[in-house]
């Protein structure tokens, strides 16, 4: 940003320490072990991924933990050839997607990568499976991306 009249530049910069609480902590521990956890609602039987403390539909507290499949189907996706986005670790080209892991009831937001990095090769219902980063940090990006399988 640069203007042809007087301006004051300033950066708002503040430190934060976000409390993950028990549920996120356990979910991240799972990622470190290459497991994806969901929680099941006793009332509606739905399984939500990532695991969460309560059911968004029934508002029941959830403590029925299930390790879910690492395979699923692409529900929706968007492809970036060159656009970079603030805060995103993934650099272009990339495909960001909503993925329905098998036997779960919510869509997981993540990336589709590997041999799929051509927008023409991907379509709704494409089967994908998780590919893990070797180094784990207890972070959503411990999953490197989901890659297409046939």
């Amino acid at each position: 940003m640069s203007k042809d009249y007087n301006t004051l530049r300033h950066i708002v910069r503040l430190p934060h320490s976000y409390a993950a609480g028990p549920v996120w902590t356990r979910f991240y521990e799972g990622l470190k072990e290459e497991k994806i956890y969901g929680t099941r609602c006793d009332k509606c039987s739905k399984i939500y991924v990532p695991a969460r403390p309560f059911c968004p539909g029934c508002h029941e507290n959830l403590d029925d933990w299930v390790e879910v499949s690492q395979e699923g189907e692409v529900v929706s996706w968007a492809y970036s050839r060159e656009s970079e986005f603030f805060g995103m670790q993934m650099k272009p080209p990339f495909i960001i997607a909503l993925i329905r892991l098998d036997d779960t009831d919510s869509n997981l937001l993540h990336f589709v990568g590997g041999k799929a990095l051509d927008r023409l090769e991907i379509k709704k219902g494409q089967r994908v499976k998780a590919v893990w980063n070797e180094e784990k940090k207890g972070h959503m990006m411990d999953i490197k991306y989901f890659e297409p399988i046939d």
Partner: protein
Amino acid sequence: MAYRVGIVDVAMTPGWESKENFLDQVFHTTKEVLDKAGIRREDVGTVISASSDVFHGGMSCANSYYWDAGGAFLKNGSRQDGESLFAFIYAVMRIMSGSFDTALVLGVCKGSENPDDDMVTYFYTDPFYQRQIGLNETIAAALQMREYMERYGVTEEQCAKVVVKNLKNALRNPYAHVKKKVEVEDVLESEPVLDPLKKMECAPKSEGIIAMLLAREDVAKKLTPKPVWFKGYGSSMDTFYLGDRDLLDTQLKNAARMAYNMAGIEDPMKDLDVIEMCEPYAFQELLWYEGLGLCDKGKGGEMIDSARTGMEGDTPVNPSGGVLATNPYVSRGLYRLAEAFLQVRGEAGQRQVDKKVNTALAHSTHGFAGQCHAVAIIGS
């Protein structure tokens, strides 16, 4: 027992960058609406503003900063964060309750000072999941658009037609930020942002300081020969995580139903004379047609093909050019309402629709893929 509420007048800045200091712009806009209505600051009952906290402006507790510039010195006032139609309805409530006879509503967003909206909306995410992926409003919109195309066969050309229609309307709007005559091909060939979204299908980042004066029925009639009346309001919130929602079954349906019930609207295509809607991404206008009940589910694409929402159609949508032409993020809901107000008054100048406007609808949305919607209906 509730009082009828009228809109007396409105003042607003154009959408492009001003060299003026933020506070001066707020002062001038506020002063302009008071002067138009012929009342003094001292006579205003309450001041309700909308702005975003630090993220859309760089200042925390933003209304502390512009409190007096907005005429609120020693007044009972408040603020809505992030959505300016919320500020409008809050001001309406305050008058309806009988506590105040006039209310000043402000929408405040100086987009030229802010970083890109994608950087700002990135902070709508939770720190544990969606932020780690890097979600923002544009990404959510691209995912929503893909699903729309896949499920209902809406085409890229149909989405592009929204841009063509709205930017054409904007050419006749002196407040519009983007003024450019475009064809479908221009849109389709514009830079890909995040396939299927193209650059021209995404709203710009604009300035928008807007002030609207409301009054109780008896006072409104004294202040203006042509008050425009508040008829109905509805708003609805969706669940937070993008992956938990059906992105094509939005809460707009619910918000519209509430507003229609209150305003006595039975058939929106017939009963509404003009609609101003918030479409930060072109395809969303088509999806919102469905949410507002202007057409059946999945038929938004056919709707734009039919030209029924064009300037010469049955129910023109976005005669102002909409958000695709002018996008002062937080203020954009009030900008929609201001245009609806001018249309009902018959004071929309060259962009006045070519029929008697009795009832108009203003819509606003904020959040990923339309997490929250608000709908206001006004009429003569």
